């Protein structure tokens, strides 16, 4: 559960969506708030299914939320 090469813009997207709370996003994606915190901190790489859920919650594509930053 340490660093992951997958970066994300979840925090930015939350604030662009009217300061959506972590709890609201967690409920929309059916995960715990702790998972959203870990995702935002880059400590957890989501499954493909969760990545799609998060993108759907923001109404954007997966590539608009996640990007590869590893070597």
């Amino acid at each position, binding site marked *: 559960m340490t660093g992951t090469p997958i970066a994300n813009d979840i925090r930015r997207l939350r604030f662009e969506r009217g300061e959506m709370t972590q709890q609201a996003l967690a409920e929309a994606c059916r995960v715990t708030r702790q998972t959203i*915190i870990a995702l935002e901190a880059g400590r957890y790489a989501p499954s493909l299914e969760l990545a799609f859920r998060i993108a759907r919650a923001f109404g954007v594509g997966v590539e608009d939320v996640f990007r590869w930053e590893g070597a």
Partner: protein
Amino acid sequence: MEQAMKGGRQAWVWVMAAAAVALLGTAVLVIGVIEGRGHLLFGGGMLWLIAASVALQDRALRPGREDGMPSGSEKAAWSQIAMGLAAIMVLGGMSLGSMQGVLAPYLMFACYALIVACYPMFRRRFIEENRRYREVPEDERDRAIRAQGDRLSKRLLELALVALAIVWVLAPPLIHALGEPLQVAAFLLLPVLAANVAGESRVALLYWRDRQ
């Protein structure tokens, strides 16, 4: 402010509980040394381990970075550690001689089997309790962390089985010294609990590290 005061009060309850268990453990250890009873020394040592786990639990379950409160699954791991240690203390004490009499082997086996069978149920019940207050009590990240704990449990159980096989071949009298076949069978269930506690400890550590 009110929440901080409540948190402070809760912390004191945990500290007092840990201190009380440690005090009891010391008393049991002293009696064990005076009377030279193995099961009392074992029980005292286990009480100290339980006190340490209660004290660590209070420390580990405090909010981390970004108000990262512990998840239901993390709390369940800590409760499993304390319960597992308590079960090992009771069952190990029985095997080391605190239970005597004609019915002792049967009662001992029944206790072991019941506790080993019920142990995973405690966690499921804890998660179900949390479901009442949370929309999602456990998700894919919880399952990934739990899988790491399960892997450690599996490895330790494999090691225990290999060690047991070696002892059985090289020093059978050591096994027979544990008592009647039913008592030996009961004692052999102890590594199952110990491996579970080790796995839960790894889960709790991974959660704690993730929130720092």
